[in-house]
């Protein structure tokens, strides 16, 4: 803990624009990829940078707890993703012929969705919206760059929710949206009870979404 704090004290600039750039990269991974492994990795990165930004407005110990809670959520999502993958592989083994016929032709291509250009545009729109909002509607009580990070997460989360029907992706979108809100609200309301209840709400939300994702995978499998 002391090492982390000392590092942040020595290089305070990392809690400013580099962290926002990190959030942008994480959002890009979430928006552009369809693989759950990439999503979990992106969330780990996102919670790390959100934790760093938190250190500017709340006590570092509380910021660390928030980051740890975020990584715990990532663990839950990872377990769910693996479970669903395993489930799908079993289903695919049963219909091996079908799997062969839909095997990708260009294996060297990165696993990007077919609507990649549209998603790239959405990512760009997110950044523009976040920047414009931070300039024209600055959030009170927090520095402008932190406000931009909040907007970036909130807009990105909302777009993730709106762009998918998959439970896991919608859940990740809601978590991203809430992390943006938490970054702002943490500065307004430093109460530990509020922090605890928000954290508990986030964790329960992740559990509910993993529950829904497993149900959805079961329904899709039975539908096939």
């Amino acid at each position, binding site marked *: 803990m002391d090492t982390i704090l000392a590092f942040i004290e020595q290089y305070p600039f990392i809690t400013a624009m580099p962290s926002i750039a990190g959030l942008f990269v994480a959002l890009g991974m979430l928006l552009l990829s369809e693989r759950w492994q990439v999503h979990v990795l992106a969330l780990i990165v996102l919670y790390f940078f959100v934790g760093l930004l938190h250190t500017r407005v709340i006590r570092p110990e509380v910021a660390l707890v928030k980051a740890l809670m975020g990584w715990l959520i990532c663990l839950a999502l990872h377990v769910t993703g693996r479970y669903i993958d395993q489930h799908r592989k079993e289903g695919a083994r049963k219909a091996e012929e079908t799997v062969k016929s839909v095997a990708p032709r260009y294996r060297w291509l990165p696993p990007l969705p077919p609507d990649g250009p549209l998603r790239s545009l959405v990512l760009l729109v997110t950044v523009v919206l976040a920047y414009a909002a931070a300039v024209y509607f600055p959030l009170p009580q927090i520095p402008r760059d932190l406000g931009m990070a909040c907007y970036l997460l909130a807009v990105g989360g909302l777009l993730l929710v709106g762009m998918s029907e998959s439970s896991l992706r919608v859940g990740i979108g*809601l978590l991203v949206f809430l992390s943006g809100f938490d970054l702002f609200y943490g500065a307004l309301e430093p109460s530990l009870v509020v922090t605890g209840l928000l954290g508990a709400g986030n964790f329960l939300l992740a559990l509910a979404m993993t529950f829904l994702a497993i149900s959805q995978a079961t329904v899709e499998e039975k539908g096939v």
Partner: protein
Amino acid sequence: MIGAVLLLLLPILAGGVTYALRRWRGLPALLAAAISFALGGALVLLPLDRPITLLGREIMLGGEAELLGRTLSLGPQAQPVLAFLFLTGGFLFLFAWRLEPEGLLAPLGLALLGLLSGVLLARPLIYSALLLQIAATLSVFPLQASPRAPVQAGLRYLTFCTLALPGLLISHWLLDIYAVTPDPPLLSTATALIGFSFALLLGAVPFHPWVPAVGRYGEPLASAFIFSISSSAVWFLLMAYLQTYPWLAGYARWTTTLMTIGVVTAVTGGLLATARRGPGALMGYAVMVDSGVLLVMLGQATRTGVTLGNTAVFARAPGVVLMAAGLMGLREQSGGEIWKPEGMGRKAPWSTVAFLVGGLSLAGFPPTAGFAPRWGIYYLLFRTRPWVSLLLLLASAGVVVGLLRLLHELLSRPPRLRGEEGEKEPPPPTEPEPKLLTVLLIIGLIGVIGLGIFPQGLAAAAAQAGAGFILPGP
């Protein structure tokens, strides 16, 4: 003064215990029903302002209590509301005992009752908003208990409830700032945020998609829990906001805004109810109509309007519970979750009657529980705004049309008996509805019609629940 703490913690702890007892089929639901009835009965019968003896110790049920440094306040206004929540929960768990003995509704529903009690008891209101969000998240598990059901119900409900949270929390902070530095833009922003959040939570148009989705894809009894108990908690939380910030109702466009949103929500619900989208969706649309009527009543900003709104909230619960129980009975009798309504009216007559009477109660049809408050609402509006009254009546008529269309399907002959080959076959053997379920449905029917004929109890409780509000009108 531990009454408030007891109402928050006891159901949550009991929910954990009942969850552990799930291996004994039906026992959790019975235990949950017993605890709910006991707590609801205690709230109705025991005095809040005098000490009572419990396990040899004298305790005060009413007053303020502290939990984690936060205040929980149980006063005469909250008493009938909490009693209503627990009694409705008791009836739902009783139906769950027969219709969903291995489901998640009983254990999690009990915990949800504790959390929703916390929503109504906790002060300041940010804790209510946070507890409401946690309760909404927990509701997803019983709502999507069936592994074969599409997940839209839980997904949409959770999404809309989550999006409502920031507005409630930030508005509280804005109003704290306003108390120190009175700045009109702060007030406008806070009002807009509160309005937006409650529109999401109540399913007002255009934030309504979660309402029919919960009815259509969710487990019927869990959907009924959300439509009756959770929605009531949201309504009374809104009342608490109005009580804490009385200038909200004095907002210049209060009446126009709420009346417009209310009428649009009710008319949209009524129109969609006429479409053939299944009985679950019909329940959702009927709830939309009811929510629209509630918003119109709130827009009146008068004591009579609030009392009638509270009565309508109380009257919604028996109708929704009966409708959900009837739907579950129909599904059970058809032998699966994917069912065709054709001919089910003959196979499950009591479930059919329960579903229809519950639906009629939601539409405000006489002589059901929903009629008395609706009659009062139409009467009140007809003198001042006859067009609004007429539109609300038409919206309710849409629900009745939907019910009639469903009744036609339920009573028609199954398709396979109509064909040439089918006519030669003997009709499939039908098992009568289980006796215990029939008894429960008959009790529910008597309750819904009884409350329609003798609505005084509901009206008195509604008046007590709305007694403390500061409103500009009479």
